[in-house]
């Protein structure tokens, strides 16, 4: 079936329910495509389990099956999957196979999806390029000389390369939205606390959130309907009315107020990106939305605030990787302290060690107030600024990243420069807000450009409704990279 790979997840789900496509057939298509893609998007394939599950699901197929029933997908390798290797793309986790599932993974299973494997990422989700993986970099399906973005680069490349119909990733400072943007797909970080973090291996607990990377906004809505909801295992998960996102997509955004913060379109933003993102405003206006200009006078503080808080929490969260309970242990240690030091020094990559040291520093005696406490205060100011902006409009429109995907090997040499490219995404995590990245054009080199829609807390529905409306009138999201294997280019 040639067009199969270019269907959206919802279209495939419908075809499965109508009996036009069998689940084993969809799974074989995905496994074959993933195997041929050559982007190093996966760390682990779970082909055997996927085939077995496909047979079972096919037998259990009912008319009333949910919209994602039988759809093959992939899971970022920092989300725990029972008895399946979960590595965080780090040497230090070795062949760790957790004896439990993340809540999000369980909910997806209940929705009837089929996981074909675990996707590549920046080690411990620290990075913007998926080059810090112990398992080698993932390549951008639009041009293998470029990075797919990060840290959910494997998830983004797998979806963009049509190796599966959607994936879940995690977003601490842009790790879903930025690779979605670089790979020309739609990705969303929902409001903090709406998807359980139980089983998501923590990078920065106060900022981490699981979300979908998919072909379009409707697929994202369907995935969020499946995974959102309060979880008694996660004390930070919110009590709110989950579900109904997909059903709310009607394309009607008349009267919706879209705010454009001038502070996000200033120096440092690539001109092609700027004009493509501003083009989104025109499309939305044409569908009846109102566009207003406003200010967000905190942008120069967001990156330092983010890196202080994220590094501090990471330094604590990653202390448990010590070669005692799970994962890899160094050899040739002299005593207990040496065991810790050797394991951690050899088991973590450079970027992870940099952030652990930075985080340890900002929490250490004598520096806590000047850095960590200060950052928590500025976080309060950033949240206030976003709340004020959200009071003046329904959604904010900003770029996702200052540029399109950089070339492989360009970013890691200057960590500070790499951190600065997170400017448009990290503030959304600091303020706990929902943010979505969607394709809105290509640069001259043919690399995708993404636009970001940001909503108020628990405003996930309006974010998706606006993106859905945009995608009714545009085709950027349907474009597939030419090199995406056999089935992809034939349509």
């Amino acid at each position, binding site marked *: 079936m040639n067009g199969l790979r270019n269907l959206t997840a919802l279209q495939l789900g419908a075809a499965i329910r109508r009996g036009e496509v069998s689940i084993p057939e969809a799974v074989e298509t995905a496994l074959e495509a993933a195997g041929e893609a050559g982007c190093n998007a996966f760390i682990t394939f779970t082909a055997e389990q996927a085939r077995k599950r496909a047979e079972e699901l096919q037998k259990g197929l009912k008319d009333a099956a949910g919209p994602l029933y039988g759809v093959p997908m992939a899971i970022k390798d920092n989300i725990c999957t029972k008895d399946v290797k979960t590595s965080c793309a780090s040497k230090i986790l070795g062949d760790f196979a957790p004896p439990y599932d993340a809540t999000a993974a369980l909910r997806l299973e209940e929705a009837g999806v089929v996981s074909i494997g675990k996707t590549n990422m920046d080690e411990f989700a620290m990075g913007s390029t998926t080059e810090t993986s112990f398992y080698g970099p993932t390549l951008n399906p639009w041009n293998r000389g470029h990075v797919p973005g990060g840290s959910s680069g494997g998830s983004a490349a797998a979806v963009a390369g049509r190796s599966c119909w959607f994936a879940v990733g995690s977003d601490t400072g842009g790790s879903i939205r930025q690779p979605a943007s670089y790979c020309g797909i739609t990705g969303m970080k929902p409001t903090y606390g709406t998807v359980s973090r139980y089983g998501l291996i923590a990078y920065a607990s106060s900022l981490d959130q699981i979300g979908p990377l998919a072909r379009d906004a409707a697929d994202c809505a369907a995935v969020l309907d499946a995974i959102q909801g309060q979880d008694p295992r996660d004390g930070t998960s919110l009590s709110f009315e989950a579900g109904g996102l997909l059903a709310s997509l009607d394309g009607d955004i008349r009267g919706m107020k879209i705010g454009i913060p001038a502070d996000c379109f200033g120096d440092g933003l690539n001109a092609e990106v700027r004009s493509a993102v501003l083009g989104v405003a025109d499309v939305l206006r044409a569908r009846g939305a109102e566009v207003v200009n406003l200010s967000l006078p905190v942008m120069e503080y967001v990156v330092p605030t983010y890196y202080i808080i994220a590094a501090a929490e990471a330094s604590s969260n990653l202390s448990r990787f010590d070669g005692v309970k799970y*994962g890899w242990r160094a050899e040739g240690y002299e005593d207990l302290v040496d065991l810790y030091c*050797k394991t951690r020094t050899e088991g973590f990559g450079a970027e992870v060690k940099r952030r652990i040291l930075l985080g340890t520093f900002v929490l250490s005696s004598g520096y806590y107030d000047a850095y960590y406490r200060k950052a928590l205060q500025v976080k309060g100011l950033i949240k206030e600024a976003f709340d004020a902006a959200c009071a003046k409009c329904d959604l904010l429109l900003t770029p996702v990243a200052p540029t399109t995907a950089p070339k492989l090997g360009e970013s890691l040499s200057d960590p500070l420069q790499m951190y600065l490219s997170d400017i448009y995404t990290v503030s959304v995590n600091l303020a706990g807000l929902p943010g979505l990245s969607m394709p809105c054009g290509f640069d001259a080199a043919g690399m995708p450009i993404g636009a970001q829609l940001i909503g108020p807390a628990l405003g996930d529905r309006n974010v998706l409704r606006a993106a859905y409306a945009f995608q009714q009138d545009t085709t950027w999201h349907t474009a597939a990279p030419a090199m995406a294997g056999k089935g992809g280019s034939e349509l």
Partner: protein
Amino acid sequence: MKITTEMVDYISVLSRLKLPEEEKERMTGELENILAYMDVLNTLDTSQVEPMSHVFPIRNVVREDEVAPSFDREQLLKNAPQRDQEAFLVPKAVE
């Protein structure tokens, strides 16, 4: 602010990392760069601002005191680099 190699040594010990000399020097420079950039926060007056650790004002998330069955021990031990039938093993850690 100036970051010295002594400071990097100190935080390395705290975080149980032992960087080779060359890596330590590079890291010292990078940290100094990053921290210098972070000083921009000092231009903000935050004397009246409460530190915000939780972004949403949720409170009192508790569970009932009801026992659930514990995990199968083998499941908990199976990923350990060194273990015996019942415990994780480490080099001598008690007097």
